[in-house]
């Protein structure tokens, strides 16, 4: 005989105001780290100029160069900090564009008509492409500049928003409060923008944060391949690339520190996503 678990939600009669927070990292911790990184990139006094070589090449970390120098004699720490001001805003702006386009297309895809059908078809075709290769091809073809990197980031992230809005929308549309909205005489657009969309904002924002994390990695990959951001400008991916051949000869610091920076940033955006999902999920339950 199967033993069904007692459902604590049914047992508990808990007043919502007394709810204690779950044991998750609160939103402000990862968000604070990200804000601090970007702010530092623009305002903090850097120990060395990130673009002007002024030291011995491949010097190990010491009191003067905290994270050592690369093969051009550039200070790794200064470049690392400055890169945050390039990589994170690029990822954010790419994501924002894909968010707006993706959500709108997702809402169209929800429509029970020929246009909804078309969007769903297009999405299927688009998803068959390996997106990273598509991004590389786009930037390589359109030219190495920041606008094209943002465009590539935007394009590769659109499908995830379309998919999310469509699948969430299909679920929400079946819920009782949507039926209730129709029953009070709400029009189609009203149901869509007052009832369906607000109930997926949490999950969209959570997805947006994941999209930023993914974009950080994509930007790094592009720079690593030498396309996208100009190598002279600081970028974590370019920094890893610069130090790649030194790894085998023992000068680990050139690549490892920017790698850690990417790791930390991705971790932060993932944590932001979790926290957002958590706090929005809370409102849904009783």
């Amino acid at each position: 005989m199967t033993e069904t678990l007692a459902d604590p939600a049914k047992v508990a009669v808990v007043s919502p105001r007394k709810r204690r927070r779950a044991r998750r990292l609160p939103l402000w911790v990862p968000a604070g780290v990200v804000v601090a990184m970007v702010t530092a990139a623009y305002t903090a006094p850097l120990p060395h100029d990130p673009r002007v070589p002024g030291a011995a090449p491949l010097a190990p970390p010491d009191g003067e160069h905290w994270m050592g120098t690369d093969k051009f004699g550039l200070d790794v720490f200064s470049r690392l900090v400055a890169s945050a001001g390039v990589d994170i805003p690029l990822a954010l702006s790419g994501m924002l564009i894909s968010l707006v386009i993706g959500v709108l297309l997702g809402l169209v895809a929800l429509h029970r008509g020929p246009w909804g059908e078309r969007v769903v078809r297009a999405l299927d075709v688009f998803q068959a492409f390996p997106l990273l290769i598509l991004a590389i091809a786009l930037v390589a073809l359109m030219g190495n500049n920041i606008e094209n990197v943002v465009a590539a980031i935007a394009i590769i992230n659109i499908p995830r928003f379309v998919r999310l809005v469509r699948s969430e929308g299909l679920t929400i549309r079946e819920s009782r409060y949507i039926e209730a909205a129709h029953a009070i005489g709400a029009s189609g657009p009203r149901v869509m923008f007052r009832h369906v969309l607000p109930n997926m904002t949490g999950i969209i924002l959570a997805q947006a944060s994941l999209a930023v994390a993914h974009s950080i990695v994509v930007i790094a990959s592009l720079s690593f391949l030498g396309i996208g951001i100009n190598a002279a400008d600081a970028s974590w991916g370019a920094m890893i690339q610069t130090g790649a051949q030194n790894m085998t000869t023992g000068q680990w610091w050139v690549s490892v520190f920017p790698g850690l920076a990417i790791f930390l940033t991705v971790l932060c955006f993932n944590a932001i996503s979790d926290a957002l999902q958590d706090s929005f999920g809370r409102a849904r339950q009783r």
Partner: protein
Amino acid sequence: MSLLELANVSKEFELSGGTRVYALDDVSLSVDAGETLALIGESGSGKSTLGRLALRLIEPTRGSVRFQGTDVLSLRPPDLRRLRAKLQIIFQEPFESLNPRMRLADIIGEPLAIHRANMSPKDRQDRVAQVIEQVGLAPDMARRYPGELSGGQQQRVGIARAIVTAPSLVVLDEPTSSLDLSVRAQILQLLADLQAQLGMGYLFISHDIHTVRYVSDRIAVMYRGRVVETGPSGQVFADPQHPYTQALLAAALPVDPGEEMPPARLVGDPLSPTRLVRGCVLYGRCPVGEDRCAETEVRLTPVDDVRSVACVKPGTVVG
């Protein structure tokens, strides 16, 4: 003229596998202003489908729906939306029927925003406050979200939203069945008070015999997509004519341990709704059924001037 009139309504659904479900089969009924017609039946009897059909939240396969003389099924979408101010519904699941991201004031005020577009924000606010008080909620709850309320309070919000535009008919789809006993009584009392004040007609859908007996003026007993018996509730309860009604009433266990329990009358489980039955839907479970019941087309037939029964030998009582 009746407030709501459903005539020969049928509804068939097609499941994804291609199976047809016959949810409603040739149902006719009417609700008058200010009265409560209770629709009683078990799950799968089609009573909730009928309630949604009355509001045209779903479309019937055949039949007609008239509300205050208007043919509801021929209305264009904008006209149908306008009609919704007069024709409202209260759902079984109070929490699920409220948008979790809206404050109570916005939920209750939304029908006004739709139907009374020229109402000033101040007037709207006043009307919402008035209704909040009318359904027995505290005024300061207007700023709360549905998730912060108990089940009973959530159902009060559902009621407030339904009555804010002063409808003439409200469909109540099992409004108390998800609530605990002590809360259920509060809500029934509130619904009765509101009906007395506002003169609304109720189409009250329920499977709870105690509740139906308490609230209804007339009842319609449903089984497997058909109405098998209808009449004033006092008479139906006192002298049920259809074997199914008799069994259903016997299924309500008396709470007084001294009161004797009527014998169980039906055998087996209800027929699958994927089969379209020509004869009586109770055939096979009925204690007084005969061979002819399987073949004879059994339709609702008057037994006196107020009651109708769909049975070839109404009023037969098993010993």
